[in-house]
C-alpha cells in the first residue's frame, strides 16, 4: 500500500506546473513511496539531544558589502527565455492571479 496517493502526486504536479499522464501518476506514486519509506527508516534513528540543522557547512553571517557589480548584458538575460518582446520576457496571460 502506497503512503502517497495518486491524488497527492497530481496535486504536487499541479503546484510544480508539471504535466503528468495517468500512467506517470502511478509510476511516480510508486517511486515517491520508496523515498518516503527511506525517510521513515531514517526517522527511526534516535536524534534526542541532536540540534536540527538545515545547513551542512558551519558558517554564519556571510554577508556582502553594498557595492554594485556588473549585471549580465541584456541579450544574455533574454536568451534564457522562450519568447521576448520590447526587451522583456513574453509570457502567456495569467488569469485569476494578482497583478
Amino acid at each position: 500500500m502506497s503512503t502517497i496517493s495518486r491524488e497527492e502526486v497530481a496535486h504536487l504536479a499541479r503546484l510544480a506546473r508539471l504535466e503528468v499522464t495517468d500512467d506517470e501518476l502511478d509510476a511516480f506514486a510508486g517511486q515517491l513511496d520508496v523515498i518516503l519509506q527511506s525517510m521513515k527508516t531514517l526517522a527511526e534513528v534516535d536524534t534526542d539531544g541532536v540540534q536540527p540543522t538545515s545547513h551542512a557547512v558551519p558558517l554564519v553571517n556571510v554577508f556582502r558589502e553594498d557595492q554594485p557589480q556588473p549585471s549580465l548584458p541584456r541579450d544574455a538575460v533574454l536568451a534564457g527565455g522562450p519568447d521576448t518582446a520590447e526587451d522583456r520576457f513574453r509570457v502567456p496571460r495569467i488569469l485569476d492571479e494578482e497583478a
Partner: protein
Amino acid sequence: MTKLNTFEQAVETYEPVLGLETHIELDTRTKMFCGCATAFGAEPNTQVCPVCLALPGALPVANRAAIEATIKIGLALNCTIASWTRFARKNYFYPDMPKNFQTSQYEEPLCEDGYVEVVVDGEVHRVEIERVHLEEDTGKTLHVGGTTGRIHGATESLVDYNRAGIPLVEIVTRPVPGTGALAPEVARAYTAELRDIVRSLGVSDVRMEQGSLRCDVNLSLNKPGEEWGTRTETKNVNSLRSVERAVRYEVRRQSALLDAGERIFQETRHFHEATGETSPGRSKEEATDYRYFPEPDLAVMEPSREWVEELRASLPELPRKRRERLQAAWALGDKDMQSVVNADAVDLIEATVAAGAAPAGAVKWWLGELSRRANESGAELTALAIDPAQVAELQAMVDDGRLNDKLARQVIDGVLAGEGSPAEVAQKRGLEVVSDTGALETAVDEAIAANPAVADKIRGGTHAAAGVLIGAVMKATKGQADAGAVRQIILDKLS
C-alpha cells in the same frame, strides 16, 4: 449584488478587526542577494544577473546593508531582534519570479513582537507588530492586450526583472480589534506612522505612489461578544487615503453580506482607486501551499548583541520625539498638533518654517486654505502643486503688507494652476495690495461722501461703524487694499 450599508450602520452592528501587512522596498544600492544595481527607471532587464535568474551554479550572498536596515526598522518598532535567523524558499510558479521561488523568511523572522502607538481622536491605539522579515521584491509585469492595462482581459504579459531581488521588508501586525468606528482612521494613522518611522531611518524613500511602500489591508467583522469573522485581504492600496477608503468599503460590503445571512469568503481583493471599491482577486485556498523550506544557499544569521546595540545607538530621532520637539517649537496645543499630524503636514510645515515663515503662518496656510484645496480635489496635501518655499514666500508677502488674505488666496489659485511663484502670480494677475496712499485717500473720501450718515456716527465716536466705509473702499479697490490701513485713514479723517 447586495446593497451596501452605510459605514455608520455597519459599525453600529459589527466590530471590525484590522490587520495590516506592509511591504517596504529598501533603498540599498544593490539587490538583496547579488550586486545588481537597483536604480529606478533603468532600461528593462539591464539590472539582472545569474543570481536574479537562479541560473545553475549561481550563489546568492545577503547584503549587509539590507540586514542592518531591517534590524533598525525592527528596533524602531520596539521589536526583539532574533539571535538566530535564516532565509526560506517560498515556492510558487508565477512569471514575476524567474527562480520559481521567492527568497523570504518563514518561521524565524529577523524581528518579532513590537508595537506602534498612534493617536486618533485623542485616543492612543497600540498596534502590535507580529514580525518584521526580509525578502526580495518581484519583477514588474506589463499586461498587454486588455483594455484596462490590468491583468483581467490581458492576452499576454511582458516581464522586466530589474526589480526582482530588490530587498523588501515585510511588516505584519497582529490583529487589531477594538477600533470600532475609528478603524479606517487607525489604519491610516498606523500606515503614516510606519512610513514616517522608516523615512526617519533613511533606509527607504517610502513613496506609496512609486510603490516603495505597499499596503495590504486585512479586515473582518464580528458581532460584539462573538468570535472574529472571516477576513479578506485587500491588495493594491497605494495611498494613505486609499488605506482609509479600503477599510471603510470592506466594512460596508461585509456588513451588508452578513446582514443578508451570507458568508464572507477568505480571499484576496483588489482596491480600485477610481471608485474606492474592492473586487475579488485569486482565491486563497490553493495559493497558500508554498512548501517553504530553509534556504540552503544562504548561511544562517546570528546577529550579535553588540551589533544590535551598535545599530540601536545609531537610530536617529524618531517621529514621535520629533513631533514633540516641533510642537514645542511651534507653540501648538495638543489638538492643533494632532490636526497637523492627521493632515500629514508635519514635513510641509517644518520646511515652510525653514524657508523663513513664522510657524503660525505656516500652520495657518497648510491646515486652512491648502487643506481645503486638497480635500476639494481629493488629493493628499503633499501632492498639491505648491511647495513649502512658495508658501513661505506667500506668507512673507502678507507680512510685508503686499497681499491681504483674500488676495493671497487668489495667488494660491495661480500657483496651483502652474502660473509660477507667488510673486510671479501676483505680478501677472495684478494682485498687489494698493499701497499708494493717495489712491486710498481718494477712495476713502469718496466713501465718506457717499455715506454721510455713517461718517457722522464715526465722528460721534462709534468706531465700529467704520466697517461700512472699509467695505465700500475694498469694493472700489477690488479687494486690493489693506483693510487695516484703510481703517486708519478713515479714523484719521473723521476724528
